[in-house]
């Protein structure tokens, strides 16, 4: 699965309150949540994000609350992938479960800046910074995780598997 888009770069400990402030959690519709994605640390994010774009950050991305609204808001904003040095545990799990690809790659995160164009191949873990002509390697996604991502998340993937079993 190949992803491509421009970088939106952030620093360390981008917490779930920064990704989607709790004051907007009285709804759970991803499109509604996306309108406020990153609002408290980057009010311009939602105006500049385009489908396919990639969030890049340093350590402990997604720390804080267990709100699945956070990866849902990121995904619905058009972001195709998040690349960071490291992710908070619950955010990592939630992202997989809802089908938002996230990759740990310190080098790619360090050497990419806002506006750079990245190409990401999940099956091989290859990350190309087209703007800077640099290549990086993250751990590739195993087959079942690629299936899960293309199905749109854990529940859809489980349903698909169950349907195959029934046939």
């Amino acid at each position, binding site marked *: 699965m190949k992803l491509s888009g421009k970088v939106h770069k952030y620093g360390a*400990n981008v*917490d779930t*309150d*920064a990704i989607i*402030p*709790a*004051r907007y*959690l*009285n*709804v*759970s519709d991803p499109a509604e949540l996306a309108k406020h994605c990153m609002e*408290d*640390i980057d009010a311009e994010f939602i105006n500049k994000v385009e489908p396919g774009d990639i969030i890049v950050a340093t*350590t*402990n991305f997604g*720390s*804080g*609350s*267990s*709100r*699945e*609204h956070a*990866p*849902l808001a990121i995904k619905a904003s058009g972001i195709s992938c998040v690349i960071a040095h*490291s992710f*908070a*545990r*619950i955010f990592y*799990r*939630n992202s997989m*479960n*809802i089908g938002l690809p996230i990759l740990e790659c310190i080098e790619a995160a360090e050497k990419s800046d806002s506006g750079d164009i990245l190409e990401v191949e999940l099956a091989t873990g290859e990350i190309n910074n087209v703007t800077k002509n640099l290549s990086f390697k993250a751990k590739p996604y195993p087959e079942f995780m690629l299936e899960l991502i293309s199905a749109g*998340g*854990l*529940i*859809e993937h*489980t*349903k698909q598997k169950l349907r195959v079993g029934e046939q």
Partner: protein
Amino acid sequence: MTIAEKILATHCGKTRVSPGELINVRVDLVLSNDITAPIAIKEFNRIGVKKVFDPNKVVMVPDHFIPNKDIASAEQAKMMRDFALSQGIIYFEVGEMGIEHVILPEKGLVLPGDVVIGADSHTCTYGAVNAFATGMGSTDIATAMATGEIWMKVPPTIKFVYHGQLQKWVGGKDLILHTIGNIGVDGALYAAMQFEGEAIDSLPIDGRLSMANMAIEAGGKAGLFRADQTTLDYIKPRATRSYTVVDPDPDAEYAQTIEYDASKIEPQVAFPHLPSNTRPINQVGNVEIDQAVIGSCTNGRLSDLIVAAEILKGRKVAKNKRCIIIPGSQEIYLQALKMGLLETFINAGAVVSTPTCGPCLGGYMGILADGERCISTTNRNFVGRMGHTKSEVYLASPAIAAASAVLGRICGPEEL
């Protein structure tokens, strides 16, 4: 094996598990709240099953934006109520409800040796009663509601040992803030934290709940304590089913052991905008506040209110400053009433609210304006956490928060 490993092994039918191992775990309780349940219910319905795996092991607590703060919150609360009533699961209506992590242990729903997962990051609170408890997202919770099982990776355990006895006004909140300040907000990422030592042995259950509660603030998956006499005194009158106390094996392997001289730890204050940004109270300097909040799943328990009342008795909240006190449950509220604590608070010029998570996450009941500062007994001080993105939250114990409310600047009780 460590406490975490032993509990997880028992729940996946193995005699032994090791860190990094992927296991399928049987859960004793699955929790969600009015913010996370709506997504979990949608996902549950998409799976296509009709009934939860066991209605006595699924609990929903309306506490974040409840009593309903606006129409959208009311709709979410209604969706959760309808689901809870139709499924016959454990549910606490307004009037019975409290903050989830306060009432679950209080009602004896979490017992030693349990595995609990909750769609709330502070689910780790129950490690205080010797349970393996961890936060997850709504999709995981939906799956567990349907099947009673969830996959997990066995975490490595980091052992924290607190030697010596605590100084006056130092409690569980100070120990955990000091620890997070020391190891950082990802210092225990993916790991189970296990708390031990002389200072822990003499720490009351409420203080242990405060500590386990904030394990997530260091990135931890769980924060665990042994079950000693203090634990059993708390558990025994509440438990309505059998349980198994889990001690670590003497030859358990720890990823790391971190030791502190607890007698040297002073009351702590975490400055904006990270819980790890801690300073001892004597290095705080002159920080004026607009508001003090005493409550939450971290510090909304009876002993927290007793400390606050001890400090506020016969004193007044500083002129034109706000002090908001939120008992964590109806039981605590009633106890505080009977003990005269509420009268002390009201005489001091504080307001007392019905149980809610409200201000902690910037929901309602104490939102901050541009440039305002709050000293709070809650657990997070991220940008915009309690309101405006240019407001500031300082985290501390109830003793510090109450004293600060009196002077209108951050201070310890000794300054009064």
